[in-house]
């Protein structure tokens, strides 16, 4: 149920990478038999007139203090490029996180059940503590979460009848230190990357600033209708042509 995809320096590189890996795989039951668009060609189009729905309430509370101003600045740049940005209200971030987590941990447990029963100590602490609770999910909870997923996905689909794409933050904070003893943030705060996994939408995170205290990247997330990767890339590329956040590096020394 998670998103997977390329991690690159720029949206342009994503387009080139996606051109190579996209396409129908008959061996993959989750693969759609749909034509592969020319992703790089999509980058050449302007975003003037595109309607973008801003889901601000997902990051209005509990986010890093530098995130809302960074997002506001990014929205102004998109408006300056001709996009029409308007607020949109969806279910709460907690609703999406509850639904996605319930489904994910049940499915993750099913994947790892054999190893968790025979050698649980071989898993890293954070992964093990995310997956083991899946053993305690009841079948009726899993089914209710799947039903709810359809409701939430339909809500996103309705929003995408009004908008060409949806915008929100890409993360509520900055990256954690690479410390295996860190507390697991999954259980302490909702994850803003989960909602578009629930909806099954193409989504892309791009840097939109740096935090003042830590000097680490802040990010904006762009999502669009199923198979509308060209629109996501077009918006990200237009933003990256007007900014240089994606070229900057954090000072890690």
């Amino acid at each position, binding site marked *: 149920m998670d998103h997977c995809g390329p991690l690159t320096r720029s949206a342009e590189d994503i387009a080139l990478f996606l051109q190579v890996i996209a396409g129908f795989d008959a061996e993959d039951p989750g693969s759609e038999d749909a034509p592969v668009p020319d992703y790089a060609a999509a980058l050449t189009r302007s975003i003037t007139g595109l309607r973008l729905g801003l889901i601000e309430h997902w990051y209005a509370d509990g986010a890093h203090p530098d995130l809302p101003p960074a997002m506001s600045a990014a929205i102004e740049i998109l408006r300056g490029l001709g996009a029409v940005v308007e607020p949109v209200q969806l279910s709460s971030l907690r609703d999406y996180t509850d639904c996605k*987590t*319930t489904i994910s941990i049940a499915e993750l447990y099913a994947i790892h059940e054999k190893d968790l029963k025979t050698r*649980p*100590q071989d898993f890293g602490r954070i992964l093990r*503590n995310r997956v083991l609770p899946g053993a305690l999910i009841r079948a009726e*909870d899993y089914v*209710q*979460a*799947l039903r*709810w997923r359809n409701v939430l996905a339909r809500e996103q689909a309705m929003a995408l009848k009004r908008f060409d794409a949806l915008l929100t933050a890409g993360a509520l904070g900055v990256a954690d230190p690479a410390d295996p003893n860190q507390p697991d943030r999954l259980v302490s705060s909702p994850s803003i990357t989960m909602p578009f996994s629930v909806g099954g939408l193409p989504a892309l995170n791009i840097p939109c600033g740096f935090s003042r205290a830590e000097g680490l990247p802040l990010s904006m997330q762009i999502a669009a209708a199923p198979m509308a990767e060209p629109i996501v890339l077009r918006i990200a590329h237009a933003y990256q042509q007007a900014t240089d956040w994606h070229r900057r590096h954090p000072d890690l020394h």
Partner: protein
Amino acid sequence: MRTDLSHLPPSGPEEIRAMTSRAGLDLPEELMQQLIAMWPAFEAMVRRIPRDCDRAAEPAHTYRPLRIVRD
């Protein structure tokens, strides 16, 4: 009207041990303690799931047999 199960009290350590055992897991005590510490946060998420979603969204109804038989 609330349709979720968030009004139920959280499971205690002995209930968590019993559920774990019923799932066929025999964890070392250190890992069992970690699960006991973690489960309440996950249980709260599960209990907030609404229980009145349409049955038409049932997984069996969204199963696509043509995709399976196509190949």
